[in-house]
């Protein structure tokens, strides 16, 4: 098992290397360090000297891939690619281009805020969606099924932006139940700040989630073991909630584990609208401040988490389904 995990994780390395190269091309070839310096210095008449100084300060003054001026280890290590791109593998994210703060510390500081929103949204919405999906599968082909499905399509067709804006309008501005935005990390206070973002998160994932889980259940329901269970005389409820649910765990799990990067990266929109200082708002700030270093780190982190979660999917398969053996 342990060997399998190691081997499976190593498969992820070439993929992350590809991601790294792609980011490097995008951020250092398409957009050269000189362009970056010009963006930051932001003046109309900047001299080459100023640009060179800025590059020196931020460590962009090195050659990109191969440093011919250095001897053996330096040939590779004293380059932008090694210091700015490969260092991401060691989680050394470096410093922000804009305010020189340490990106790694900032990310660690912000993760809990993101989790505060995304974990409850994730748990509540999964429970709600699974429950509704099972009910719908139970009443498949009846008008309950039809109407819930129509509701789902309607809800899927509304942008998450509208849910958040209308939610704020109704709950905060009209009824004044909760504050419009902001965050307080003290224990009882944060509930009132978290309630609305969580509610909106659950609502905006409802349509897609229910439909997805419904297809999974309907696929299971047409299988032979369900017919056997019915033939044994089990009630439809037991068949669905006990037998079908257990077997549907596999595709559900895939969907769930792949959500991990999004849990940690936070809801971009939610954090932006409700003023929660998590990773999502970190990225949005980076966009508005043109902070390339932060953005590069966050994209790599996202890809890293995704690759890790794929490994977790495979491992969790073996836990859920004893038929899957690993060599």
């Amino acid at each position, binding site marked *: 098992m342990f060997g399998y995990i190691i081997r499976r994780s190593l498969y992820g390395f070439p*993929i992350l290397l*590809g991601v790294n190269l792609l980011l490097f091309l995008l951020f250092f070839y398409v957009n050269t360090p000189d362009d970056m310096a010009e963006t930051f210095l932001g003046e109309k008449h900047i001299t080459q000297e100023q640009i060179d100084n800025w590059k020196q300060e931020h460590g962009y003054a090195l050659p990109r891939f191969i440093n011919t001026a250095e001897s053996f280890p330096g040939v590779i290590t004293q380059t932008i690619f090694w210091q700015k791109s490969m260092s991401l593998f060691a989680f050394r994210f470096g410093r922000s281009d804009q305010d020189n703060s340490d990106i790694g510390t900032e990310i660690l500081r912000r993760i809990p805020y993101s989790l505060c929103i995304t974990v409850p949204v994730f748990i509540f919405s999964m429970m709600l969606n699974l429950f509704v999906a099972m009910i719908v599968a139970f009443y498949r082909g009846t008008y309950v099924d039809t109407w819930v499905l129509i509701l789902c399509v309607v809800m899927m067709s509304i942008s998450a*932006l509208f849910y958040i804006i209308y939610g704020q*309008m109704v709950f905060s501005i009209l009824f004044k139940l909760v504050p419009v935005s902001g965050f307080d990390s003290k224990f009882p206070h944060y509930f009132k700040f978290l309630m609305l973002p969580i509610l909106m998160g659950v609502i905006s994932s409802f349509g897609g989630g229910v439909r997805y889980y419904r297809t999974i259940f309907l696929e299971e329901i047409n299988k032979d073991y369900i017919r056997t269970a019915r033939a044994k005389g089990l009630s439809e409820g037991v068949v669905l909630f006990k037998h079908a649910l257990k077997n549907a765990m596999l595709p559900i799990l895939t969907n769930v584990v792949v959500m991990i990067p999004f849990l940690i990266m936070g809801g*971009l929109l939610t954090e932006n609208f409700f003023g929660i200082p998590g990773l999502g708002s970190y*990225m949005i700030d980076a*966009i508005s401040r043109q902070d390339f270093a932060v953005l590069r780190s966050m994209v790599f982190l996202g*890809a890293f988490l995704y690759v890790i979660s794929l490994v977790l999917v495979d491992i969790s398969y073996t836990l859920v389904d004893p038929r899957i053996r690993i060599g």
Partner: protein
Amino acid sequence: MKYFLNSWAFQNVLVVLLILLLAWIVMVMRQSEYWRAAFRRVFKRKLARISFVILSIYCVIALLDSVGFNQPLRDTEGQVQCSADTGKVLRDEQGMSLLDYILTPLRASKEKTYSAPFATHQFTKETVMDETGNSSRKYPALKHPRRHLFGTDKVGNDVLYIALKGIRTGMIIGGMTTLLVVPFAILFGVFAGYFGGWLDDIIQYVYTVLSSIPSVLLIMAFMIVYGQGLTQLCVIMGITSWTGLCRVLRGETMKLREMEYIQACEAMGVSKLKIMFSHITPNLMHIVLITAVLGFSGRVLSEAVLSYLGIGVGADTISWGGMINDARMEMARSPIVWWKLFAAFVFMFGLVLPANLFGDALRDALDPRLRTE
């Protein structure tokens, strides 16, 4: 180059090409009994019929908004102005589309600033002098009372007109991206699935790398490097979304490759390219069609989010995302200015819901087992 790609004329050529292509695809499909039967099944549903009509209306508006001309400049008396030395008619730099021309009354009915839907008076107070010379603060009467279905915005433009102009942007984002995605996905998917081996490995590697970056992050990185713009947005959305379709097509091709009719083709010595493109690809088109229609609505929704985040089509292109972005300030006013947001909501919902319903109907008619999220 970037400016040329984002120019009005270039995009218009693309839109017209896109619609011609669509017409050609419909013509080709009408030839085959398989597709005729499939569409009979789709159109048996009332919802699908209604959705199709609504989508067609959106298409027509987008087309009208893409065919235009440069109007001659007129002086205050309405006389066409000519250049003094050459005698040529001077033309407005800003192109005018047929839609603008049709909506001239709407375009011309400008107010000074905000006014609510169907209002008779302006939304904000102004100091007005009456005949006796006394000044007072009151709501001035509108120049065109009860004419604005969705009110007017901050500079007095009719919101309905702006929302209608947003249709073209939405359709370009949905449609042009699909046009970019589909050929690549088919090409790579079929090659990878049919040949296998190292070609398959490379193509798989490329799409795994691209799909392992959460798409919103990749879009962000790309847009911050290349800057805002409609064309850039279409290209990057294409890059992030061909991978899913490619993966499905590769798997399906691998299945088809083992079928008897393909093996018969091989035994008879049909060339590999001909097998791939005239025997395998037609049997994948139902997947392509379903994914294209369902992907369309997703892209229209993402445009709004990206424009809101400041990495969308940019401020000089009218789009629903931009309208929502403007509304951010308006919602903070008291009393709130809700109609611009509402108009964007109505028009987006009016496009995305039919697209979703039609996509579902297509899927149910063509391949009910295809799982789409």
